């Protein structure tokens, strides 16, 4: 104890090192505190991203060392690879249809439940339920619902007199729409957020709108939508990001078929990397995916700036 006191005494007498001051000690603790993240960011984030960028410029069959090929992979993607174009088309169409529809269905449900429906928490639980079902189980379930001829969908159609119903996942025309139905089944996933934001709209705003003579539609359009627009934007962006990473359902049900009609982007990436062992090409595909998601997110954020209302601006 005595030595410690003396040591502190001499330290105060001389000039303190930065880590001995109160501020310095706090900063040091801060750096130690975030060090797990910082290490992880370098080891599992920055490092792999740089490596991945390098691999995308190589031919790398995983079994032998990567060979530098410049922009060959990208040239092949954009000029010769028909499946790359197909994967972009499939994923793009899927995103354009399911993201807005998912937002509309989820938001619509939230609006209905927000009409002071009794037993709100029970309704909410029920509609949210499909969103917690594991992707693998959902895939098998829908493979069973849309099974050819004898699945739930087809047997209902035949019972009500429609002969020759489609072979859903077995037809190039219906396979992608069937996967869209599967995706919309989870549309209740946005419900919790929408309800929370609807309940957060101050009632004073509705009262003011009524005083100004706004009817129900006017209130909805001028109060509800603007006040909940940040959450709509958030779920919209998350929807885009997620739909570009669809994998499980297509992998299990269709494996991309028939005739590549459900060849989702990540499914193609998996095929290239882990089935055909073209790791360099797969790394290139991953970077293009990153650029697409990044660009779309920026685009949505930019264009939405005019529509989205943020409190306190």
């Amino acid at each position: 104890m005595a030595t410690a006191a003396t040591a502190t005494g001499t330290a105060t007498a001389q000039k303190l090192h930065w880590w001995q001051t109160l501020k310095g000690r706090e900063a040091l603790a801060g750096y130690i505190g975030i060090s797990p993240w910082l290490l992880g960011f370098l080891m599992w984030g920055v490092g792999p991203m740089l490596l991945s960028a390098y691999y995308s410029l190589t031919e790398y069959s995983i079994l032998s060392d990567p060979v530098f090929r410049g922009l060959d992979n990208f040239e092949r993607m954009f000029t010769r690879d028909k499946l790359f174009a197909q994967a972009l088309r499939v994923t793009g169409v899927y995103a354009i249809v399911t993201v807005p529809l998912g937002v509309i269905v989820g938001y619509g449900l939230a609006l209905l439940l927000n009409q002071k429906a009794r037993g709100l928490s029970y309704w909410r639980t029920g509609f949210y339920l499909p969103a917690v079902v594991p992707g693998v189980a959902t895939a098998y379930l829908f493979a069973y619902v849309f099974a050819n001829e004898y699945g739930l969908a087809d047997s209902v159609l035949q019972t009500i007199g429609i002969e020759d119903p489609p072979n859903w996942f077995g037809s190039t025309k219906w396979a992608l729409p069937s996967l869209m139905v599967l995706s919309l089944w989870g549309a209740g996933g946005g419900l919790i957020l929408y309800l929370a934001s609807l309940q957060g709209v101050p009632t004073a705003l509705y009262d003011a709108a009524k005083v100004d003579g706004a009817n129900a539609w006017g209130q909805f359009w001028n109060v509800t939508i603007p006040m909940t627009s940040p959450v709509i934007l958030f779920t919209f962006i998350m929807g885009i990001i997620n739909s570009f990473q669809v994998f499980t359902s297509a992998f299990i049900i269709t494996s991309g078929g028939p005739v590549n009609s459900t060849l989702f982007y990540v499914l193609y990436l998996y095929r290239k990397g882990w089935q055909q062992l073209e790791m360099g090409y797969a790394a290139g595909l991953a970077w293009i995916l990153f650029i697409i998601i990044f660009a779309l997110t920026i685009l949505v954020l930019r264009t939405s700036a005019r529509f989205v209302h943020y409190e306190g601006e």
Partner: protein
Amino acid sequence: MQLSTVFDLNSHQVSRIFWRTVLYCVLALGLATFLLPMVWLVSGSLKPDGQVFTIPPTFIPRPVLWENYPTALNKFPFWVSLKNTMTIVIGVLVGRVLTASLVAYSFARLRFPGRNAMFVIVLSTMMIPYHVVLIPQYLIFRDLGWLDTPLPIIVPNWFGGGAFFIFMMRQFFLSLNSEIDEAARIDGCGFFGTFWRVILPQSLPAVGALSIFTFMGEWNDFFAPLIYLNTEEKMTLAVAIRTWQFDTNLTYQAATWPELMVMSTILTIPPVLVFFFLQRYFIQGVVVTGVKG
């Protein structure tokens, strides 16, 4: 005679009752549509193999084959896969609770140069798709000899546990009253002592939400286990089911439709139960990260 006079209601009340009825009908119809596939799943798991497909569809199997469950559980190495799944869930969970909350505490409460800039970097990493880092990570883990072990899935989560969870915990810590931990500091509690003895014990709701998200995420995950786990003895339930679908080696036969439905039902039960009973934490977690973000 009009209904309104029978029940002695004015026109406002009549229109109100009318719209309420419409509302509940729409909600009930919607809910039935959403839940129908789940009923179909459970009903399919209780049917005899030959009765899975019939026209018109039968929702109530005859006879109800409860023995489909024990049969399927015995036919496939279910318990091994369950153990593998829980190993990953717990391994990820412990690492994430410890490191995400420590990192989040430092961002929320400690002042150091570059703090805000670094937090912006944390947030921006949320936009990086997993697939960009996947290939190099896969090759690193291969060189470490970690393929076909749970380590590639667990270990990265011991480094902050992912940007989303750091963000979530930080949001929660910022909502805590800082007077209590300032008092602890004045009483001579160090920075990490304050974190461990004062902040964490107050944070059970946030830790609860984090645990639920982690359980659901790892239990449901398909892509990472598919990439990293190759032999049946190491697989998690989600990927094992897919293997059983085609398994035609000497030990087992490929799964039948009712067996696939049994496995899918079993896979679905834990997340649904967790959601039912821990809904409060779950909803809080979703709202904190979504609305305030």
